[in-house]
């Protein structure tokens, strides 16, 4: 086991473990936040595993997750909008902490792979991950309720 795999395992155990615990217990406002942030824990760990096992194809899984995770959260935000209006979740600190975790992971991996197409791909995934989670988090806390025709 190398350092990349160790970091990925720690991230999966702590991040994904906390997300599963958050999703399965507590009030709705906490469950939706944990569901949203599970992407932020699993996606960077997939990137780390890709580097650790030297399998670039694992990066595609992270790309897919970074795309589909926030979309799933937006579906929940839409379907649960009545309940969430009464008791809106507030997770500004957690959202930005997760964004920071994604940014740090991507930057470290970029430094490891060096300037290449793989680095641009990592940056694209990082932008999708962070942007998607910030948008989805804002949608959960009711930030887009005034969107025209939305």
């Amino acid at each position, binding site marked *: 086991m190398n350092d990349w795999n160790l970091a990925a395992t720690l991230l999966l155990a702590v991040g994904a473990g906390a997300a599963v615990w958050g999703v399965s217990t507590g009030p709705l406002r906490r469950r939706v936040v944990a569901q949203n942030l599970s992407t932020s824990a699993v996606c960077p760990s997939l990137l780390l595993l890709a580097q650790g096992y030297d399998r*670039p*194809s694992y990066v595609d899984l992270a*790309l897919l997750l970074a795309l589909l995770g926030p979309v799933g959260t937006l579906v929940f935000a839409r379907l649960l909008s009545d309940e969430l209006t009464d008791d809106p979740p507030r997770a500004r600190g957690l959202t930005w902490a997760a964004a920071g975790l994604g940014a740090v992971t991507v930057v470290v991996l970029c430094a490891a792979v060096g300037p290449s*197409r793989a680095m*641009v*791909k990592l940056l*694209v995934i990082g932008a999708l991950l962070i942007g998607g989670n910030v948008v989805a988090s804002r949608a959960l806390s009711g930030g887009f309720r005034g969107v025209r025709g939305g």
Partner: protein
Amino acid sequence: MDRRTALVATGELLAWWTGLALLWLVLISTVDPLECAVGAGVAAVGALAARAARRAVTWR
């Protein structure tokens, strides 16, 4: 559609195509002529879809 709107539409499609083709080029694992040809084709389809979606949202 007069000359000016046709020019604007072509420019928008070309901008979408360039962005999507570059994205394809970044995301594939090996760059060879077949991949580039397929990428150019799907980027063209994607550009048409992107412009249609943009017009549906902004209604112009």
